[in-house]
């Protein structure tokens, strides 16, 4: 039996935040877990829908929710919540395979 997954924010809230993302890259620059180059446009698209590339999947698994990405955001968005959502999508895609 799975326990409820606690998201920082709801899906709609995260979708709204992704729409407000200006693509400045500050969150990724601050990330200590990012090991390979990933661009914001790809990350945002794959966080919301569609297939998840190996690079983004690896990044999502590497993210340990330290929150270092939140403070640098110039518009007050929460990349940690987006990454949590991506993790959930990744889990779901794994279950559905």
């Amino acid at each position, binding site marked *: 039996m*799975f326990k409820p997954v606690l998201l920082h924010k*709801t899906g*709609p809230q995260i979708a709204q935040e992704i729409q407000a993302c200006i693509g400045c890259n500050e969150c990724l620059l601050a990330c200590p877990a990012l090991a390979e180059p990933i661009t914001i446009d790809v990350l945002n*698209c794959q966080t919301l829908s569609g297939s998840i590339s190996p690079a983004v999947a690896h990044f999502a698994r590497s993210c340990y929710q330290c929150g270092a990405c939140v403070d640098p955001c110039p518009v007050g968005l929460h990349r940690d919540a987006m990454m949590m959502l991506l993790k959930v999508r990744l889990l779901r895609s794994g279950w559905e395979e």
Partner: protein
Amino acid sequence: MSRQATVPIPPYTRIGRPHLDSANIVIIGNGIAGVTAALEARRYAPNTRIVIITEQIHPTINTPALKQFVLGKLERDQLLAYPAGKERAERIHVVTARVEYIHAQQKFVELDGGRGFGYEELLIATGSTPRGFPSHLPGRNFDGVLTLHRLQDYLDLRRRLHELREAAVVGGGPHAIETVMALLQRGIHVHWLIRSATFMPHVLDQHASETVIARVRRAGGASVYMETEAVGIMGRVGMVAGIVTKQKQLLPCQLVLTCTGTQPACVLAEHCDTPLHCEHGILVDDQLRTSIPNIYAAGDVAALQNPQTGTYETRPQWYAAVLQGRIAGAMMAGREATESFGVQWHATQLGELSMLTVGNPLATGNDVTELVDTSQGGYRRMTLVDNRLIGYLSLGATQPDSLAIKRIIDEGLAVRDITKALLKGNFDARKYLSQLRSRAAHSILMPQKGHVAVPNPPSQVRLLPVTGPLGATPSLTQEQAHYTEPLPARVQVSAYVNLDEEMSPFTGNLPTLSKPSASGGVPRSPSKRRSAPRNLWSYSNKMPTVAPERNTKEEVLDV
């Protein structure tokens, strides 16, 4: 000779198979609003022909990130707003041309070279143009006078940075200060000329303006000149050598950057056989319909009604353009969105200072309560009416949860319990919104247990007014184009389509180990599940989105 006398034969009069000069949905402009509209339309109309007509020679980029590009934090490839090849993958055809004229009565646009291009639905997303220096300003043509607006301008600036010691920035808005801060971070001395007595006088009060200016001065390397205008630019052998102010002061510099604001690119509103209603932008309603049927406007060119003031104004911000693009795309694909865009929202980073303005923090009146806090080295100002927040201004080291605050204003949520936290800048939006949902759930699950202290019961949520359609011109009888698949009839929807499922132990929509449906499509129909009246569960109700096609194959966010 009349304008109509020179027009080519409308493309839709040609009988036969669909051809390259007509489309179901035509979008003018490939800025973020235009491309977002195209992608959204594609989502709901998988088989219609969508074309973007643009003069721009590069894909859609994150324009707010151009400052980071100048700083060297981003490379060009990282500026893309959507992954490379997105338009092609979504079968969105891009035509590089300039639209000269709109023949609204016959439903086609005239491109440069006299070509015609037919449409069923047309979106004007031509963006804005920079004001720049007045045409009579002496020296405005010297090499080194740049107007920062497009990617090419920033490429130009970036090339020049290595030989730059001093620069002048002209302008008193967020664009100007972001440019100043970017140059300061590159170690360049900046002369900053501001025409008004305070910085951003329509958004910031005196104290906030002084705080921002003081922070810029403290950053080092900036000389700020208030109430100062440029009256000329000095040059030497064709290049900028300095800028002359109204006070007859010569400020030496090698570069002059104008950041004096933008104006909506409304030329097509006039270049139309039935001119569109235009006043500081093309007037649109909340469904982004212009005064002419089947023509929409979105992005910097569109003027929407401010729900707080009732006036029509443009919203030249990234987030607003994305939302408008989504709405316009859905509308053109036959959906109908009924949501309001809410109040103005602007968040930015000014060096180490985060600035946020939501709604109308400078509102005045007998019924308006103003609260101000200057603790923790920051500055926050709130305006309230009857325990409802109507404006919020924040300057500080960190950015608050800006979209959550916008939601509080948009939905008119009571702020009695969080006033102090908002004022002190330590508002925990996640906790607050989570509590709201919990209380709403409690009231739903146990209504017989008596009153539950929901801060703002769903039925009493003060909704922002949704503007009705503009005074549309009478619909004219149109010959129909010969398309493979006409657009579907408009479907009235009120619920968010995808991305609206919030994981909740109450709804039972937690991830399970069950296999997806055989069709591989969306396992549930969110629109059915969320057809209930607006309540505190339906955060998505504030998002201007629409119902999905039932046969869509796209995987949707479902958590």
